[in-house]
């Protein structure tokens, strides 16, 4: 069954069209990579999927688990198992990481008809999950992302994903600015969560991350359109030849 179907999606920001007819279908349990040069619309796609109101969908459709995603508020999407790992995680002074995550987890659980998580259980859960992404324990009590290094912010995104256990995870340039240790920690976190049911869309500029998170399918996004799809070898080709060839064909 398709977990995500994007049909002829057109998106504008302040009157400028960024996505010009994106088509993409993801089966449950698969890892899809979306690659493309800067300004091709990769992050726009991620933000639209998450429900950012600064992006206007002018036409097209997105079905998530068969439901009309565009009709859902951002929080409903999250409660239905959608997760976006932000390219630029937001700092929230005055709110501790733990408190934030507990509020998020309880919102998801309530939606699923489950009891709110017990304080002790929650503490054990976050400690265990922090370990899997090698996130320093001391960051748990700190305000969300405040004063975190670039690598810590990205690990914190993967950590949140590990706690919330979503069904579809979109990772928007999670690899950008990461050194090799942080990159492998992030990839380990993702790979541990691959269970044949959970689906991932990995958005990246470089092939590097895909050595660690091996995709089932690769899509090339250029000038707001998917210009080519293929298997993991497509990523390697891109690494060798670059995006220039596609750019010309698209122009």
């Amino acid at each position, binding site marked *: 069954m398709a977990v995500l179907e994007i049909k002829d999606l057109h998106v504008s920001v302040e009157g400028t069209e960024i996505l010009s007819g994106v088509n993409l279908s993801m089966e449950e349990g698969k890892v899809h990579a979306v690659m493309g040069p800067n300004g091709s619309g990769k992050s726009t796609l991620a933000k639209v999927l998450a429900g950012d109101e600064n992006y206007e969908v002018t036409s097209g459709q997105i079905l998530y688990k068969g439901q009309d995603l565009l009709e859902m508020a*951002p*929080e409903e999407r999250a409660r239905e198992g959608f997760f976006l790992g932000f390219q630029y995680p937001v700092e929230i002074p*005055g709110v501790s990481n733990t408190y934030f995550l507990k509020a998020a987890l*309880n*919102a998801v659980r309530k939606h699923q008809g489950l009891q709110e998580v017990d304080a002790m259980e929650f503490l054990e859960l976050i400690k265990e999950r922090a370990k899997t992404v090698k996130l320093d324990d001391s960051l748990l009590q700190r305000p969300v992302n405040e004063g975190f290094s670039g690598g810590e912010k990205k690990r914190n995104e993967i950590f949140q994903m590990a706690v919330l256990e979503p069904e579809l995870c979109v990772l928007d340039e999670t690899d950008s600015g990461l050194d090799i240790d942080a990159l492998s920690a992030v990839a380990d976190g993702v790979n541990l969560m691959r269970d044949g049911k959970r689906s991932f869309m990995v958005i990246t500029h470089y092939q590097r991350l895909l050595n660690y998170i091996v995709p089932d399918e690769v899509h090339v996004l250029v000038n707001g359109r998917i210009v080519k799809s293929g298997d993991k070898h497509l990523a390697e080709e891109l690494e060798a030849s670059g995006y220039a060839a596609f750019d010309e064909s698209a122009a």
Partner: protein
Amino acid sequence: MAAIAETRSDYRQEFEADSARRAGWLAPLQQRGIEAFESQGFPTRRQEAWRKVDLTPITQHHYPRVAEPGRVSSALTDKLGAFPGHRVVFVDGIYAPELSDLGSLPKGLTVGSLAEYADGAPERLTEVMGERVDIDAQPFIALNTGLFRDGAFVHVARGALVEQPVVIVHVATEAAQGHAVYPRTVTHVEAGAEARVIEQFVSPDEIEGLVVPVSEVHAGQDAIVDYHRLQEEGAAMRHIGGVHASAEGNAGCRVYSLASGAALSRVDYYADLEGEGVDLQLKGLYLTEGRQFSDQHTYVNHRVAHGTSSQVFRGILQGRSETTFDGLIRVFEGAEKTSAEQQNRNLLLDKMALSHSNPRLEIFNNDVVCTHGSTVGELDETALFYLRSRGVSQAEGKSLLTVAFANEVLENMRDERVSNYIRDRILDRLPGGENMRSSA
């Protein structure tokens, strides 16, 4: 030359009517108070410090002082229990022993009513009372000084450690409709002693009266004082108060303020660092909604060297409310190695709310570090989207961010009961914060 008519104001007449029953030791102070008020009169908008305040509701009519205390409604009686501690309650300005709880005061702590000292007061009271408040600088402080009938006296003896807070509650009742109340509090924590005081102001929503309180807080050498002022009067009240904190060498003095009540509220905070090595913190939160007007003025005086002060005031504004923060750091000649910071931030939750911020520095000395900053802004939409993208509802996300905004004032409070209480009062005004209550 035109003849000047000798008229006695309504307020002076009230003062004179009191003469017979005034305690002898208070007579000179109260006399000075009424004289200072008479010579200044009510402030006008031509005076810089009163430029934003519309005082006409107060100055157009005479608010006679409440003659007999009214009955305390059960809703207000419930409020009295908000904080466990040594409780002293004043109803319409008069001590109410039946509502107070002063049993088992620990050694070294005195809590009582000023009226008890009709025949003479101990030196530990007279040596601080009225000694530092500047009756010539603020007419309402002068008016209180002339007309208060009773008040609280809190004394902590040298070296004593008082664990439970002293809770002073000023209740205004139906009797305050169209009338004035003049609460007065003197807190004297002697050298090396430590104490917490919570002073709370409450009244029923519909009562439109005038509350003019003055609180004096003095920390002796090496003393540690946490003073909390919670102004939570009903929506129609008018509240114009003054706080005067002073600290001797190496004392730690922390003044926390919540201003959430009354249609019009104005508080002037004076803080004097009198000895070297004082650490003084002045932290305030003002919450306004509807058409509330809230005005906070600070005057932090570094009189000697090696003093540290920190002022953090935050405003959360809703509806068509309006606020002013006017904060002064004054570093006197000779007060080198002063470190003083002042920060005022305002969060507008509604488009029609209006906030003014006016930081001021007067530095008459080299070798000091003074910083100040002020901002007025709205909720961070990016942060709100981030919260929602994790499943938190829009309403809960707004509450979460609003409380987070207040946390800089709240998180360093040593008494969690007070910070939790204030957090809950913020949540009272916001939908979607049910899960965040201290009881949840």
